[in-house]
């Protein structure tokens, strides 16, 4: 059985990528499961999607803990614990990352025995509208790495899954997927099917037993204000707004009022400050700033400029 796990951010088309790959497998006569993990995640937050495919009926259910292929559409997720990118990876797992860095860098950085590949054309759009194409590229590359899906089936699946979109958008998706498919030719079929697992081998996690308590004790009461600041939603960001203080007119209110996340505060002198721990990169401030004093910088470049601090 093939077990494939997609990691991306909400809006990058991971759910669609899993559906494309699932449909392509199905067209090749496989039994297929494909499902995104539904949770409290939102656009920009870490997203998971899973595909299982087998020639025999699939009895496994639920999330994939031991993947044969892990696909990461956004390399900044590797460092995010909540994304769990490396979970369950072994030396048999193939890891495909959309990254500017080389496979060697990643091998060294992760100290991993797995086969590590990067997408041939790192895909880092400067516009949110480009984001979903990452999914098509990932699905195309995956089809090649699996070696059991010819391009014709992949293309057919892609067109089927995207049928509702505008023709130009579908063609761009096909092109991205095809490029990734073709460039991965040297690695054709490098993903090996994982062993079937049996319920008898299941090792339960180390459950912590919690005694049944009265509601006063067990009800989840929060006793401090604004604890949400502990959640670093800045990790969702793919684009970073940067204020040019020479051009900022100290208007006092525009960026700060419109920022949905309360992530811009203005000090007594009228100087706005962006809270990068929490800014999700929606770029409303960039669009609204009257003197255009806020620039858009790809998060990757901003972090590189900081000397890889993050």
């Amino acid at each position, binding site marked *: 059985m093939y077990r494939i796990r997609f990691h991306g951010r909400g809006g990058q088309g991971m759910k669609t990528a899993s559906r494309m790959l699932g449909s392509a497998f199905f067209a090749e006569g496989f039994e297929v499961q494909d499902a995104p993990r539904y949770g*409290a995640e939102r656009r920009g937050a870490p997203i998971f999607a899973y595909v299982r495919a087998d020639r025999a009926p699939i009895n496994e259910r639920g999330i994939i803990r031991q993947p044969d292929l892990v696909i990461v559409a956004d390399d900044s997720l590797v460092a995010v614990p909540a994304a769990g990118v490396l979970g369950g990876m072994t030396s048999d797992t193939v890891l495909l990352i959309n990254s500017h860095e080389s496979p060697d860098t990643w091998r060294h950085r992760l100290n991993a025995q797995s086969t590590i590949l990067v997408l041939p054309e790192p895909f880092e759009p400067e516009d949110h509208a480009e984001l979903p194409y990452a999914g098509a590229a990932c699905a195309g590359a995956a089809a090649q790495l699996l070696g059991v899906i010819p391009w014709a089936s992949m293309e057919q699946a892609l067109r089927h899954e995207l049928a*509702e979109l505008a023709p130009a958008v579908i063609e761009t998706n096909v092109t991205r997927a095809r490029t990734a498919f073709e460039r991965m030719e040297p690695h054709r079929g490098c993903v090996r099917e994982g062993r079937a697992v049996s319920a008898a081998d299941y090792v339960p996690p180390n459950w912590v037993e919690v005694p049944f308590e009265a509601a006063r004790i067990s009800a*989840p009461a*929060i006793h401090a204000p604004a604890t*949400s600041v*502990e959640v670093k939603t800045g990790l969702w960001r793919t684009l970073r707004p940067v204020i040019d203080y020479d051009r900022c007119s100290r208007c006092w209110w525009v960026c700060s*009022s419109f920022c*949905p996340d309360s992530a811009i505060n203005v000090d007594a002198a009228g100087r706005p400050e962006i809270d990068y721990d929490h800014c999700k990169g929606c770029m409303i401030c960039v669009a609204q700033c009257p003197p255009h004093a806020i620039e858009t910088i790809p998060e990757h470049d901003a972090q590189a400029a900081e000397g890889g601090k993050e």
Partner: protein
Amino acid sequence: MSAREAMIKRMKDLPSTHLLGTGTPMCAGCGGLEALHEVYDVLGENSVFVNAAGCMTLLSVYPFTPFRGSWLYTAMASAPAGAQGVRDALDILLEKKRVTKAEDLEVAVLTGDGAAYGMGLSATSGAIERNLDFLYLCYDNEGYGNTGQQYSGATPHAAKTATSGGPRGFAGYKKDLFAIWVAHKPAYVATVVGAEPLDLARKIEKAKQLTGPRLIIALAPCPPGWGYDPKDSVDIGRLAVRTGVWPLKEYVDGKVVHTKIPHPRRPVEEYLSKQGRFAHLFAPKRNEALLAQLQAKVDAYWAQVSE
């Protein structure tokens, strides 16, 4: 005009630091969160939020909350009933002198349009009937956004939703919740949008001075549900006002007053064409008849507004 309301007269009077905590799981560019953070700055931390199921249920997921006061989660239809319980409890504590007048809290209901326009309408009607002293904030993203934008009673005519496809989109019409609420003759009803923060702040200031049921509908532009880039949330909110699609108005002292009449009113098309949910009106072929019908509906609304 009270002293507090007079505080917010100009853009410069808007708060520059914010009460609502960062780090919420709302989508990047969420128009509902934008409205809520603007509302919260004015409403203040001496408040209890009673939240019906919806996107904003996710604001407070243990152990995290962006609020500085309490938050209570209710089923989708019953937030106003929950607010009644909280208000009653506070009143009992006041009467027993276990809380002082200064410690009293504003009880605020927070629901999406699914609850406000649909299944929570009966509970709201009952709460207004009982003259419950509460504030109701509906973030209206015109569909069941939390589950993937299925249509709701707030979905506009012709919009594409997860459950309204085809070349004509949603066949129904957006329910006039403002008029339904006004028909109950509560203390205050208003429409707002995060893209007009001054209008919003003045209305929340006004509502805060009043007692009894005070109900606010905030149009909440929704990047994933409406199909546009998150950076355009404010532009789309502003266009909703300038094209006349979202009239900013209030009901107080038995009268409906429009607080921002668009002059000149821009063509509705400018608002529609920026959103993926209306893309089928423009491609592959412009649907002139349907576009004219949508424009005519807005024109008819404004024709009956006296200036």
